[in-house]
C-alpha cells in the first residue's frame, strides 16, 4: 500500500536520482564514442534527458502521500522560520501558554466542583429533597447540610412515595475528634441511614457496608465503615483493619468495611473518613441528642427517582405531601403563628447528580467570572498574535507574491501560513497544560485555606481535554486565519509593484490591524476594571473594623468530666480552667464565652422590647464578666457584667448600639427590659438591659452590624464544652504549647482545639483574596499585551509613513509636530477602545455585583483609574514609535525612494 512506499520514499527518490545519473553517464559514453569532447558529450546528454528535477519530482510524488508530505514540509519550514524569529516565537508561545493554561485551570476547577457527576450508580437519578427557598424554619442547624430534622425525615418516609422514588436515604456530615485528649485530630464523619450504600450502588472493597439492620432507632452499638483513603492513611491499607475500632468524640466504633476508592462522599470538595449509621448519633455525648430533638436540623435527604420520573414530577409529589409532613413534625417551642407559618412550608426536589457542596454555592459564580476573565485574556492574546502575524505577513508580502506569481496555489500558501499558527498553538497548548497544573495547585491551596480542608480530584479527564483542545483550536483559527487570508488576498502584480513601500498598500489590512488594537484596548479595559474592583473589594473586607481585637485566640476544651449535671459544679470547673490559663505567662487575659463573635458559633432568637408587640431577630453572645475589657469592646452607656450577676441575681443583658437603636428607637434602652421568645428548652425570660456596648461584628465580617444581646455566663450555663477567648501578650506559638501543657495537667484526656480569630477571619476571605489576586494577574497581563499591541501597530504606521513624515519634515514641520501627529493617531485608537471597553466593563461589573463588597459596580473612582491607567499605558506604548518618527532624517528617507 501507499504507506509502505511512503516510508521508503527517500530511498526510492535516491534510486531515481542514481538511475538518471546512470542514463546521463551511458549517453555521455555513447557521445564520446561518437567523437565528442567529454564536456560537450556530457552537456549533450543532459540536454537530451531534459528536466531531470521534474522527472525526479514526478516519481517522488508517485511514492508519497501528498497531503502528509505537504504538511510535513510546511511544518519543517515553519519551525525554521520561527527559529529564525525567536523573539516573536517566544512572545507568541508564552502568551498562548498563559492564556490557554489559565483557561484550562479555571475550567478544570469548575468541572470538578460543578460539572462532574458522583462516582455512584446512575447519578442522574439522584435528587436532594429540601424545603423551598423562603420557607419559615427556625431551630438549631447543626451540620454541614442542615436541611431537615429527624422528625421531618420520619414523616417523609411515612408518605409512601414509592411511585416517585425507588429509594430514599438521609445523611449528615461533621468533623469528629479521633484523639483521646490533647490536641484534636479530626476525622470527617458521615452519618448515613441504613439504605444509603445500597441506593448509591456501592460495593465494599473489603468487609461489608452499613445496612438497614445497623441503623435501628435506639441502637446500643454501631459499626463504622471507613473510606479507602482513610484506610490507606490511618491503617496502611492492612486487611486486619476489620477487627479494629475507631474512636469518635470518645465513643468506640467497630470497623466493619471499606468503601470503594473513588467514593469520596456526597459533598464535593470534602472527603469523608468514617461513616456511621444515623442511630449512632445518640451514642455521641458531644451531639445533643439530635435524633430526639424536634428542632434540630441536621440531615439531608437524597432520593433515587423511579424510571420515567423527573425532578419536576418529584417536586409536584413532594408539594402535595408537604402539609401532612409539616403538620406532624412541628418543632417544639414554636408560637402558634410560628406553627402556622411552618405548616405552609413546601418541600422540593433538586438534581443531585454532581453531588452537594457548599464549595459550589460559594465558588461556582467566582469561577464562572474567572473563566470569563481568562477567556478575555486569551482573546487579547489572540488579537496580539493576529497583529504580529499580520506584520510578518506584510514583511513576507513580496515572497508570497512571487510564489503566487510562479504558480503556487492560494490554498497551499494559506495552508502553509496556517501551519505556522497550528505549530504555535500546539506548543502553546502543551506549555499551557504545565501552566494549568501549577495554577490549579495554587488555587486549590488557596481554597483549602478557606475551607479548613479541601479534597478535589483534579486528574485530567476527557471533558477537560476536549475543552483545552477546543480553546486551542479556536484560538488558532482566531489569530491565524485572518492574517493568512489577508496575506494572499492581494493580486501578485500589485504586491510586486508596490514592493511593501509607498502608500498604495492595501488599506483593508491596515484597517484590520487598527480594529484589532481597538478590540485589545477595550478588552484590556474590562479586565483592568475587574482587577481594580476586586482589588478594592479585598481592601475593603481586609480593613473592616470588626469592633474588637482580632488578635485573640479561641480555645475549646471538651471531655465528659467538663460537663457535670450540677450547674454550680459546672461553673466551678470552668472557672478553674479559666484561671489556670489566665495565669500562664504570655497570656494577658482569658474569658469564658459560649457564643462569641466571628467564631462560627452563633445563636439567634426572637426578641421583644418590653411593651412592644412586634418581635425581631437578635444575635446572642454568652460571655464572662471580663469579656468587654478582654476583647476591647467599650461600654458606651450603663455598665458591663460583674461578679454580682450570679444565677440568683436578677437576669441582666448588655446590648450593642445597633440593638438599642432598633429595639428602643425612642427611649432609653438601659433600665428597660427585653423578652426572649420561647425557644427549645428555655422558658420565657424577662431580662433587664444594664448597659450598651459599642457595635462589633458577629456572624460574618462582611455583614452589617447586627443587633446583639450579651448575656452573662453565670446566668446561662448552656453548652457542652468549655470555650474561652484568650488574649496573648505577644507571640502565639509558645502560648499554644503552654495551654496544652496546663490543660493536660488537669486531665490529659481533655481535647483541645485552638484558633486565632483574626486568622480564621482572614482564611474566610479566600474568595475575595482569590478574585483580587487572579484578576490583578489577568489585568496586568492584559495591560502588557495591549501595550505590545499598540506599540507594534504604531511602529508599523511610522515605518509605513516614513516617506510622508520625511516630506513633512523637509517642508518645515517641527519634530514636536510629527510627535504629536503620531500620538494623536494612537489616541484615536485608544480612545475608541476605551469607549467600547467602558461600556463592556460596566456590563461585566454588573454581572459580578454579588462578588463585590463596599463599592458599586459602576464605582466612578475605579472606572476613572482603570481608564487613566490604560490611557497611560497606551500613550507610553505609542510614544516610542512617535519619537522614532520625529527623529527621521528627511534626506535619508527621501533618497531611498
Amino acid at each position, binding site marked *: 500500500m501507499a504507506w509502505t512506499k511512503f516510508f521508503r520514499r527517500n530511498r526510492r527518490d535516491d534510486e531515481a536520482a542514481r538511475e538518471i545519473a546512470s542514463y546521463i553517464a551511458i549517453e555521455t559514453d555513447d557521445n564520446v564514442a561518437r567523437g565528442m569532447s567529454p564536456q560537450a558529450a556530457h552537456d549533450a546528454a543532459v540536454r537530451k534527458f531534459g528536466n531531470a528535477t521534474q522527472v525526479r519530482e514526478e516519481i517522488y510524488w*508517485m511514492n508519497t502521500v501528498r497531503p502528509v508530505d505537504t504538511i510535513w514540509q510546511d511544518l519543517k519550514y515553519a519551525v525554521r522560520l520561527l527559529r529564525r524569529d525567536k523573539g516573536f516565537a517566544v512572545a507568541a508561545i508564552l502568551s498562548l501558554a498563559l492564556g490557554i493554561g489559565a483557561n484550562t485551570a479555571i475550567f478544570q476547577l469548575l468541572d470538578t466542583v460543578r460539572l462532574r457527576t458522583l462516582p455512584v450508580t446512575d447519578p442522574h437519578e439522584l435528587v436532594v429533597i429540601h424545603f423551598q427557598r423562603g420557607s419559615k424554619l427556625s431551630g438549631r442547624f447543626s451540620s454541614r447540610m442542615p436541611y431537615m430534622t429527624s422528625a421531618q425525615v420520619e414523616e417523609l418516609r411515612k408518605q409512601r412515595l414509592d411511585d416517585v422514588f425507588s429509594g430514599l436515604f438521609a445523611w449528615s456530615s461533621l468533623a469528629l475528634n479521633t484523639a483521646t485528649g490533647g490536641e484534636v485530630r479530626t476525622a470527617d464523619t458521615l452519618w448515613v441511614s441504613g439504605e444509603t450504600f445500597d441506593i448509591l450502588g456501592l460495593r465494599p472493597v473489603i468487609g461489608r457496608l452499613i445496612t438497614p439492620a445497623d441503623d435501628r432507632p435506639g441502637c446500643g452499638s454501631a459499626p463504622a465503615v471507613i473510606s479507602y483513603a482513610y484506610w490507606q492513611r490511618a491503617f496502611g491499607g492492612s486487611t486486619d483493619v476489620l477487627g479494629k475500632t475507631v474512636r469518635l468524640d470518645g465513643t468506640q466504633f467497630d470497623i466493619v468495611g471499606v468503601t470503594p476508592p473513588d467514593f469520596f462522599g456526597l459533598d464535593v470538595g470534602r472527603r469523608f473518613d468514617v461513616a456511621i449509621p444515623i442511630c449512632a448519633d445518640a451514642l455521641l455525648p458531644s451531639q445533643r441528642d439530635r435524633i430526639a430533638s424536634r428542632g434540630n436540623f441536621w440531615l439531608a435527604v437524597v432520593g433515587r427517582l423511579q424510571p420515567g420520573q423527573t425532578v419536576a414530577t418529584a417536586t409536584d409529589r413532594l408539594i402535595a405531601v408537604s402539609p401532612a409532613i409539616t403538620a406532624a413534625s412541628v418543632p417544639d417551642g414554636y408560637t402558634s403563628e410560628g406553627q402556622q407559618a411552618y405548616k405552609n412550608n413546601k418541600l422540593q426536589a433538586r438534581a443531585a447528580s454532581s453531588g452537594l457542596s457548599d464549595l459550589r454555592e460559594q465558588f461556582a459564580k467566582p469561577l464562572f467570572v474567572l473563566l470569563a476573565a481568562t477567556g478575555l485574556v486569551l482573546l487579547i492574546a489572540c488579537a496580539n498574535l493576529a497583529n504580529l502575524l499580520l506584520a510578518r505577513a506584510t514583511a513576507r508580502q513580496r515572497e508570497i507574491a512571487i510564489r503566487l506569481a510562479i504558480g503556487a496555489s492560494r490554498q497551499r500558501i494559506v495552508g502553509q501560513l496556517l501551519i505556522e499558527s497550528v505549530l504555535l498553538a500546539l506548543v502553546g497548548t502543551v506549555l499551557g497544560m504545565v501552566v494549568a497544573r501549577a495554577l490549579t495547585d495554587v488555587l486549590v491551596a488557596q481554597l483549602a485555606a478557606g475551607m479548613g480542608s479541601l479534597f478535589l480530584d483534579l486528574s485530567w479527564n476527557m471533558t477537560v481535554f476536549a475543552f483545552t483542545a477546543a480553546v486551542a483550536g479556536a484560538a488558532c483559527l482566531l489569530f491565524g486565519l485572518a492574517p493568512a487570508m489577508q496575506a494572499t488576498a492581494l493580486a501578485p502584480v500589485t504586491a510586486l509593484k508596490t514592493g511593501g513601500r509607498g502608500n498604495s498598500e492595501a488599506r483593508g489590512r491596515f484597517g484590520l490591524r487598527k480594529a484589532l488594537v481597538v478590540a485589545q484596548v477595550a478588552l484590556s479595559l474590562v479586565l483592568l476594571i475587574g482587577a481594580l474592583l476586586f482589588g478594592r473589594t479585598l481592601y475593603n473586607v481586609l480593613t473592616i473594623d470588626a469592633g474588637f481585637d482580632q488578635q485573640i485566640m479561641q480555645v475549646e476544651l471538651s471531655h465528659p468530666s467538663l460537663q457535670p449535671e450540677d450547674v454550680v459544679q459546672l461553673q466551678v470547673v470552668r472557672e478553674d480552667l479559666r484561671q489556670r490559663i489566665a495565669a500562664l505567662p504570655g497570656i494577658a487575659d482569658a474569658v469564658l464565652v459560649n457564643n462569641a463573635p466571628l467564631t462560627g458559633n452563633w445563636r439567634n432568637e426572637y426578641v421583644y422590647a418590653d411593651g412592644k408587640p412586634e418581635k425581631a431577630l437578635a444575635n446572642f453572645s454568652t460571655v464572662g464578666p471580663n469579656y468587654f475589657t478582654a476583647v476591647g469592646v467599650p461600654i458606651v452607656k450603663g455598665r458591663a457584667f460583674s461578679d454580682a450577676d450570679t444565677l440568683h441575681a436578677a437576669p441582666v443583658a448588655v446590648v450593642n448600639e445597633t440593638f438599642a437603636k432598633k429595639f428602643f428607637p425612642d427611649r432609653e434602652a438601659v433600665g428597660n427590659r427585653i423578652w426572649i421568645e420561647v425557644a427549645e428548652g428555655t422558658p420565657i425570660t424577662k431580662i433587664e438591659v444594664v448597659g450598651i456596648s459599642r457595635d462589633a461584628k458577629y456572624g460574618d465580617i462582611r455583614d452589617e452590624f447586627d443587633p446583639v444581646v450579651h448575656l452573662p455566663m453565670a446566668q446561662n450555663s448552656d453548652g457542652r464544652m468549655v470555650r474561652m477567648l484568650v488574649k496573648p501578650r505577644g507571640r502565639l506559638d509558645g502560648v499554644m504549647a503552654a495551654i496544652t501543657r496546663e490543660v493536660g495537667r488537669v486531665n490529659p484526656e481533655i481535647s483541645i482545639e485552638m484558633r486565632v480569630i483574626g486568622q480564621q477571619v482572614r482564611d474566610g476571605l479566600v474568595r475575595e483574596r482569590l478574585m483580587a489576586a487572579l484578576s490583578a494577574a489577568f489585568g496586568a497581563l492584559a495591560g502588557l499585551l495591549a501595550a505590545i499591541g499598540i506599540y507594534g501597530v504604531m511602529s508599523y504606521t511610522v515605518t509605513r509613513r516614513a516617506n510622508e513624515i520625511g516630506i513633512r519634515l523637509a517642508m518645515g514641520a517641527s519634530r514636536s509636530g510629527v510627535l504629536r501627529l503620531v500620538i494623536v493617531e494612537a489616541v484615536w485608537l485608544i480612545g475608541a477602545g476605551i469607549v467600547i471597553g467602558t461600556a463592556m466593563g460596566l456590563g461585566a461589573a454588573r454581572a459580578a455585583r454579588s462578588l463585590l463588597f463596599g463599592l458599586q459596580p459602576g464605582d466612578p473612582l475605579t472606572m476613572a483609574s482603570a481608564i487613566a491607567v490604560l490611557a497611560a499605558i497606551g500613550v507610553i506604548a505609542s510614544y516610542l514609535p512617535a519619537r522614532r518618527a520625529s527623529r527621521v532624517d528627511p534626506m535619508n528617507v527621501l533618497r531611498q525612494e
Partner: protein
Amino acid sequence: MLQGALDMLILRSLVIGPAHGHTIAHTIEHGSDRVLQVEHGSLYPALHRLEDRGLLASFWGTSENNRKAKYYRLTPPGRKMLAAETSRWEQLVRAIGQVMKPTTD
C-alpha cells in the same frame, strides 16, 4: 504518442530480455526508425508506474560499457498484460484501417 502506447512499447522492448532505461529508449527510437521520440520526462515515471503495478521488476546491474544501471525485466503479469495490449492494439489498428481504407473501388 497515444495514451497507454508508451507503456505497451516499454513492455514490448523488454521481451528480448532485461534492459535499462537508456537501452529501452534507444530500442523504441531505432525500432520505429526514429519516428517515435521517447520523452525522458515520461519514460522514467512510466517505468516506475509499471514497476509499482507489478508488471516490471527491477535490479541494479552493470551496463555494456561498465556503468551501474537499473535494469528492468518483464514479470509474468507483465507478459500477460503485453499479450492483452498487443491484441487490443491490433484490433484498434485493424478498426482504424477499415475506416480509413476507401471501400468504394
